[in-house]
C-alpha cells in the first residue's frame, strides 16, 4: 500500500499541529497528513508548564524582547529570525486565544502576563502552570475542524525518502498492525521535537529521542548548533520532573544547604524580597545551572541518594498564590516528592531540558534539502542561540510552525507527484527493518544496556561543563555504541504494536544525535551560553561567533563547518544580569 499527500507532517505536537492548520488555511485543497508516533495530544508539548512569551503590554516593546532573546542566547541567535519571531509571537498567541486556549486573565478580562527568567519585562502569557497542555489541546481540538487534515496516529517514521535531490515523503510503521509503508508527499515537515532522552536525567518524555534530527541528518540535511543543550536549574531529583521557572518568577528563592540565596555570589544581582526581572532567581537558565555546579564544588549543596540538590523555597508566597498560579507545581510535589510546597522547600537540581540546536533551517523553516522543512524544537532557525530563554519555545512552535506550513504549502503546490523510485526505496527500508531488526535472531546487545551506556557517556562528557579530552573520549565511545546499537537483539519478533522495535529504532536515532552533539562540542573551543568548556572558559567571538553545521560523512562520523551569525542591530556585548 502506498499513501500519498501533498504535505506530510512528521509530529503532532505544538509545531506540527500549528503547521497543519496553517496549510489547511493557506490552501484548503491540499491534502495534509499528520504522522505521529503517539496520539497528537500526547506529544510532549503537553508537559510545558510556565508560559509563552509575546509582547502585549504598553510598557514593553518588540526591541526589548529581541534584546533579551539575543543576549540570553549569548549572541548566537540570528537576529533577523529573532525579529520576525518577536513580531509574530503576539499575533500567534492571540490567534490561539481565538481558538479557545484558556489563558489566565487579569481581573478586567484581558490576557494576564507573568515575569520569566532572563526577560526584562512581563510578557509571558500563561494558562496557570499548564500552558503547554492547554495550548496543545486547543490546537489539537481546533485541528479536528479541518477535514483536509488526515491523521496517522501511532505511526512511527523510520526514514525520509529522497530522490532526485528532494524529499518526497517518509516510510512509517503503523504500530497497531506492524505494516511498514511509504507515505509520499511533495513536501515534508519535521516537527518531531527534541532529544533530551540522550541524557539519563531529563525533563523530557520518553518520546523525545531526536528522531527528526537523525532522519534529516541521515537524509543529508545538516544539523546546526548541536553542542547547545540546555540544563534547567530546577528538576525534581529522582524523576527529573520539571518545576517550572514560573515558580521563581512568582517569587521563589533558591537556597543552598545553609539556607543562603547563593546566586548573589555569582554576579547575578542582590537579593531582594520581591523578584526583580533579569536578576537573581530570574537570571537565565545556563547561568543558574552553572552556578549550581560551582556551589556543589564548594560543598554547599545537600547530598541525597539521587545526587546533590539545593532547595527551592516557595513557602513565603503563601497558599493563595501557589494554588492559583502554580497548582500543578504543588500537585507534582505532593505526588512525586511527597512534600507540600506551601509548607516545605522543594529539593531541585539541574536537569537536561531543551535542545537549542537542530535541523538547520532558514527563516521560513526550509532546510537546505529541497522539499524538507522543519519547525519546533527539532529545528534550529536559530532564535535561541546558545541558550534559550524560558517561554520562548512555545511561541516559537507557533510562529515557525505556521511559517513552515505556509512555505511547504506553497512549495507543494508547484511540485509534481513523487515518482516510483521512492516507492522502491521504501521497499528497501522495509526489508532492512524486517531483516536487520524484526526477524534477526543473532542480535547480541540489549537495548537497555546500550542506552544506559550512551546516557552515561553523555552525562559525563557533555554535561554542564565539558572538556576537550572528555569529549574526545566520548566520541570514540559513541562510535562503539553505534556499532552495538546496530546489533540489537529483540525479544519481540511480532508485528502488532511492537514497542521494542520502536525503542530499538529510537536508540539508533539517539546515538546518531549524541554523536553530532559531542562532535560539535569538541570543535567549539570556547564557552558560550549552555556550552561551557573548562579548557576554553572564555567566549571567543573571533573564531566562534558562528553556527556549527554538522554533516554526516559516509563513514557515519560528522563533519563540522561554520556559518556566520546574522547580526542586524545588536552587536555582540557582555551578558549582564542583576545590574
Amino acid at each position: 500500500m502506498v499513501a500519498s499527500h501533498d504535505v506530510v507532517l512528521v509530529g503532532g505536537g505544538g509545531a506540527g499541529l500549528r503547521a497543519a492548520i496553517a496549510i489547511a488555511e493557506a490552501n484548503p485543497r491540499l491534502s495534509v497528513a499528520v504522522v505521529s508516533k503517539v496520539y497528537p495530544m500526547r506529544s510532549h508539548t503537553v508537559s510545558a508548564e510556565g508560559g509563552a512569551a509575546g509582547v502585549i503590554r504598553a510598557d514593553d516593546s518588540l526591541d526589548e524582547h529581541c534584546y533579551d532573546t539575543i543576549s540570553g542566547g549569548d549572541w548566537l541567535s540570528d537576529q533577523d529570525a529573532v525579529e520576525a519571531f518577536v513580531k509574530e509571537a503576539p499575533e500567534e498567541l492571540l490567534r490561539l486565544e481565538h481558538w479557545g486556549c484558556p489563558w489566565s486573565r487579569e481581573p478586567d478580562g484581558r490576557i494576564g502576563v507573568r515575569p520569566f527568567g532572563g526577560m526584562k519585562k512581563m510578557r509571558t502569557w500563561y494558562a496557570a502552570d499548564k500552558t503547554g497542555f492547554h495550548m496543545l489541546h486547543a490546537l489539537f481540538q481546533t485541528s479536528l475542524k479541518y477535514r483536509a487534515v488526515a491523521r496517522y496516529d501511532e505511526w512511527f517514521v523510520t526514514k525520509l525518502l529522497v530522490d532526485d535531490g528532494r524529499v518526497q515523503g517518509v516510510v512509517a510503521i503503523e504500530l497497531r498492525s506492524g505494516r511498514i509503508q511509504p507515505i509520499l508527499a511533495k513536501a515534508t515537515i519535521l516537527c518531531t521535537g527534541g532529544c533530551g532522552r540522550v541524557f539519563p536525567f531529563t525533563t523530557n518524555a520518553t518520546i523525545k529521542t531526536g528522531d527528526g534530527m537523525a532522519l534529516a541528518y541521515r537524509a543529508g540535511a545538516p544539523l546546526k548548533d548541536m553542542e547547545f543543550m540546555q540544563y534547567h536549574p530546577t528538576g525534581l531529583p529522582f524523576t527529573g520532573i520539571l518545576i517550572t521557572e514560573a515558580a521563581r518568577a512568582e517569587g521563589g528563592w533558591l537556597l543552598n544547604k545553609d539556607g543562603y540565596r547563593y546566586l548573589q555570589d555569582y554576579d547575578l544581582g542582590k537579593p531582594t524580597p520581591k523578584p526583580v526581572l533579569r536578576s537573581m532567581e530570574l537570571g537565565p537558565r545556563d547561568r543558574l545551572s552553572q552556578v549550581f555546579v560551582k556551589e556543589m564544588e564548594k560543598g554547599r549543596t545537600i547530598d541525597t541518594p539521587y545526587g546533590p540538590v539545593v532547595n527551592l523555597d516557595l513557602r513565603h508566597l503563601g497558599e493563595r498564590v501557589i494554588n492559583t498560579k502554580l497548582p500543578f507545581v504543588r500537585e507534582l510535589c505532593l505526588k512525586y516528592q511527597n512534600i507540600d510546597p506551601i509548607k516545605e522547600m522543594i529539593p531541585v537540581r539541574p536537569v537536561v531540558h531543551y535542545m537549542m540546536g537542530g535541523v538547520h533551517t532558514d527563516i521560513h523553516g526550509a532546510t537546505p534539502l529541497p522539499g524538507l522543512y522543519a519547525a519546533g524544537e527539532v529545528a534550529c532557525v536559530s532564535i535561541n542561540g546558545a541558550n534559550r530563554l524560558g517561554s520562548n519555545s512555545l511561541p516559537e512552535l507557533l510562529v515557525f510552525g505556521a511559517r513552515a506550513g505556509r512555505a511547504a504549502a506553497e512549495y507543494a503546490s508547484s511540485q509534481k507527484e513523487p515518482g516510483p523510485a521512492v516507492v522502491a526505496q521504501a521497499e528497501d527500508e522495509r526489508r532492512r527493518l524486517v531483516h536487520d531488526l524484526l526477524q534477526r535472531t543473532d542480535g547480541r546487545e540489549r537495548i537497555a544496556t546500550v542506552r544506559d551506556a550512551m546516557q552515561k557517556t553523555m552525562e559525563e562528557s557533555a554535561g554542564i561543563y565539558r572538556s576537550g579530552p572528555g569529549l574526545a573520549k566520548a566520541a570514540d565511545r559513541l562510535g562503539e555504541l553505534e556499532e552495538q546499537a546496530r546489533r540489537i537483539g529483540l525479544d519481540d519478533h511480532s508485528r502488532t504494536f511492537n514497542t521494542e522495535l520502536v525503542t530499538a529504532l529510537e536508540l539508533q536515532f539517539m546515538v546518531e544525535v549524541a554523536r553530532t552533539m559531542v562532535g560539535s562540542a569538541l570543535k567549539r573551543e570556547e564557552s558560550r551560553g549552555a556550552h561551557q568548556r573548562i579548557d576554553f572558559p572564555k567566549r571567543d567571538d573571533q573564531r566562534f561567533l558562528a553556527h556549527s553545521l554538522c554533516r554526516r560523512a559516509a563513514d557515519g562520523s560528522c563533519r563540522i563547518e561554520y556559518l556566520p551569525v546574522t547580526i542586524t542591530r545588536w552587536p555582540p556585548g557582555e551578558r549582564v544580569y542583576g545590574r
Partner: protein
Amino acid sequence: MSTERNRYTEFRPRWYRPKMSTWWWLKRWSSLAFILRELSSIFIAWFIYFFLRLVHALGRGDAAYREFLAWAASPGIVVLNGITFAFVLFHAVTWFNLAPQAMVVHLGGKRLPGALIAGANYAAWVVATALVLWIVSR
C-alpha cells in the same frame, strides 16, 4: 461469522473484545453501591403500595385503619419496611450528596460551593420532615 474472520492474518489484526460479565457490579464495592442505589427504586415502589393501602384503609373507617396498623406490625412487614427504610435513606443521602454535581448556583457572580448546595438540600429535608410530623401528629 466464520472462524476465518477471527483468525490473525498479517496486518489484519484481531482485537480482543472482552465481554462485560453479568456480575460486573459485584467486582468493585463502588459498583455494588451503585446497583444498590438503583435498587432503592423497588423499595420506593413498595412504599407507595404500602402507603396506598393505608389510604385505602383510612377510607374504609376506623376498624380498617386499626387492622392496617396491626398488619403493619406483623413481623414480615416490619422486616420488609426495615429494609425499605435503609434503602430509602440510602437513596436520600446519595441524592442529596450528588445534587451539587448537577446543580450550579450563582450568587452575586460567585459560584456557590458544593457543600453549601448539599447542605441546603439537607436543611430542606429537615424542614420537610418536621412539616410532615407536625401535620400528621397535630
